C-alpha cells in the first residue's frame, strides 16, 4: 500500500470528506470503497483515465448523482438526506464551473452572474449589478463583457464568465470540471494563474478535475489519482515515486516530463 494512502482522515479541517463511496452503473462498478479528504484552502487536482469516474465523483459530491453506497460530507454536513432548506444553503456555499461554462444562453453575462445573487440574497438590484461587475472584472473579463450574450463570447471568455457566476456568492469550495480544456496554452496558463490568484484572495478550496498536466504541476497543492476504483492522494513528488503502472505512465510519460521540465 502506498505510503500516502488517504485511508486515515488526516485532517480535522477537511471541507469535503468521502468515505466508502461505491458507484455502480448497472453491472459496471466505477468506484469501490473510495475515500477522499479535501483540506480547507488547498487546490486539489483530480486525474484519472477515461471512464474512471472523475466527473461522476464531482457530480456525486455536488449531489447531482446519488452514489450506490458510502458517505459524502460537504463542509461537515452529510449530503444524503439533508432537508431542502439546508441543501440549498449548502449549495450556496459551493460554486461550480462546468466544462463548457453552462451559461444560460438567454441571458447576458452580467445577468448570469446575478442569478445566484438574486436567488440567495436580499441585495438591491443596483448593488447586485455592482457585485456582478466586480466578479466579472475579477475573472479577468473586460468591462464590456457583462452586456454580451454567451453566444458572442470566445471559449476562454465563456469559462471566465462561468467562473464569475460560480464565484458570485463567495463560495467556500469551487468545483472546476476540466477548466483549461479547449483553451490555447497561453489562455490555459492565464486561466490557471487566475484560479490561483482567486483561490488566494478569496480563500477558496478548489476541487479541480483536469487532464492538463501543466495545471497539475503549476497550481495544484495535491493531486488525487483515480486508479483501481479508488483514489490515491499525494503531492506531485509522492506520485512520481509511486510504482503503480498507470500513475507511473501518467507522470513519467513524455507529456508529464515536459510539463515538469517547464515548471522547473
Amino acid at each position, binding site marked *: 500500500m502506498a505510503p500516502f494512502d488517504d485511508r486515515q482522515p488526516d485532517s480535522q479541517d477537511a471541507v469535503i470528506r468521502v468515505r466508502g463511496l461505491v458507484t455502480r452503473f448497472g453491472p459496471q462498478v466505477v468506484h469501490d470503497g473510495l475515500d477522499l479528504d479535501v483540506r480547507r484552502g488547498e487546490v486539489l487536482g483530480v486525474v484519472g483515465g477515461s471512464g474512471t469516474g472523475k466527473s461522476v465523483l464531482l457530480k456525486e459530491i455536488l449531489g447531482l448523482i446519488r452514489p450506490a453506497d458510502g458517505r459524502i460530507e460537504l463542509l461537515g454536513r452529510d449530503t444524503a438526506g439533508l432537508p431542502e432548506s439546508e441543501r440549498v444553503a449548502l449549495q450556496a456555499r459551493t460554486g461550480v464551473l462546468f466544462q463548457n461554462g453552462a451559461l444560460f444562453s438567454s441571458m447576458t453575462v452580467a445577468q448570469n452572474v446575478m442569478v445566484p445573487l438574486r436567488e440567495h*440574497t436580499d441585495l438591491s438590484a443596483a448593488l447586485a449589478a455592482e457585485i456582478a461587475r466586480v466578479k466579472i*472584472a475579477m475573472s479577468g473579463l473586460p*468591462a464590456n463583457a457583462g452586456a454580451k*450574450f454567451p453566444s458572442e463570447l470566445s471559449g476562454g471568455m465563456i469559462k471566465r464568465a462561468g467562473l464569475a457566476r460560480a464565484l458570485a*456568492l*463567495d463560495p467556500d469550495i469551487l468545483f472546476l470540471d476540466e477548466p483549461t480544456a479547449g483553451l490555447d496554452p497561453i489562455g490555459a496558463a492565464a486561466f490557471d494563474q487566475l484560479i490561483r490568484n*482567486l483561490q488566494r484572495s478569496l*480563500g477558496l478550496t478548489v476541487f479541480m478535475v483536469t487532464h492538463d498536466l501543466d495545471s497539475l504541476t503549476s497550481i495544484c497543492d495535491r493531486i488525487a489519482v483515480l486508479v483501481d476504483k479508488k483514489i490515491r492522494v499525494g503531492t506531485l513528488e509522492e506520485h512520481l515515486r509511486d510504482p503503480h503502472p498507470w500513475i507511473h505512465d501518467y507522470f513519467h510519460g513524455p507529456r508529464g516530463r515536459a510539463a515538469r521540465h517547464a515548471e522547473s
Partner: protein
Amino acid sequence: MARERAWLESSRAGDGEWRLTALGHWDLKAAGGLSGTLDGFALDGGGAVSLDLSRLDAMDTVGAYLLSALSDRLAAAGHGVDLTAIRPEHAALFNAVREVGPPPVERAQTHRPILDMLERTGRTAVDGLREGRDLLSFLGLIAITFGRLMVNPRRLRFRSVMFHIEQTGLNALPILGLLSFLIGVVLAFQGADQLRRFGAELFVVNLLGVSILREIGILMTAIIVAGRSGSAFTAQIGTMKVNQEVDAISTLGLDVVELLVVPRALALMITLPLLAFYADIMGLFGGAVMSYATLDITFGQFIRQLHGAVTLPHFLVGLVKAPVFALVIAMVGCYEGLKVSGSAESVGTLTTKSVVESIFLVIVLDAVFSVLFSFLRL
C-alpha cells in the same frame, strides 16, 4: 447597533482625525442592510479619515466592495483616507476588489420616442424585405440543385426521401384525419343551421363539397404540416448546425442543400397532395355523418347530391396547390434551420419563426391562387 451583523464605529481624535472602525461580519448576508446605511454615510467637517479594517470578523467580496466604495466616497468628499489597518488575510481580497475600479461612465441615452419608433419600424421593414430576398435566393438554390439531380438522379438520397415521407406523411395521418373530420362536422352543423331557414337543407352537401375540396382540406393540411413538419425540419437542421454537423457535411465535400434540403422538400411535395386528398375525404365523411345526424340526409343521398354539386375542377383546384405549399413549407423550414447559429436558444426562436412564416406564406399564396383561379374562371 450591536445586534447587527456588521457595523461601523466612528470616533474623532483630538487633532480632528476621524477614526472609522469596521466591526462584525462584512459579507453577503449583511450587505442588504449595510448598503442602505452606507449610501447616506457622511462625516461632518473635513479632516483625514483612517479606516480601520483590522478588527472585523469576516470579509467577503461584497464586504470588500462596500468598504472600498465607502473609502472612494469619503475620498471624493475631500477626506484623506488611510487604509493601512487591515489584516493580511483580508488584504489580498480587498486589494483585488479595489483593482476593479469604479464603473465605467455610461453615455447618457438620449430619448427620442418618435424617432426611435420610426427607426424600429424602418428596421423591421428592411429586415422583412431582406428575409424575403434571402428566401427567394434560397428557392433558386433549391431549384438549381433539383435541376442537377434531374440530370443525375442517382445522387438523390432515396432512403432519406422515404424516411421523410414516413415522418411527414404516414405519421401525420391520425391527427390530420381527426381534425379534418371535426372540421367537416362543424361546417355541416353551421351550414345546416343557416340553410334550414330557407328549407334548403340538402344544399349543405354543396357547401361542404365546394368549400372542403377547394379550400379547407388543403389549407388545413398545409397548416398542420407546417406546424408538425416545418418546425421539425428547422429543429433537426438547427441542431445539426449547433453540433457543427452542417459544417462537417461541407468540409467532406458534400452539398448541404442536396443532402438535407432536397430530400425534405421532395418528400413533402409527394406527401402533401396525398395528405390533402385524405383530408378531403375525412372532411366530407365528417360532414356526411353530421348531415345524417341533424338533417337525416342518408349517405346515399349525400353522395348523389355531391356528385351533382362538385366537378373534377373543384377537386383539382384544391389539389394543385398542394405541391406549391409543400415546397414553401419545406423551404422555410430548412432555411430557418440553416440560419441557426451557435446557441441552443436560437433553435427555439427560429423554429417558432419558421412555423409562423410558413403558415403566413401558405395563406398569402392561397389568396394569390384564388385571384388567379377567378381570372381563369375555374
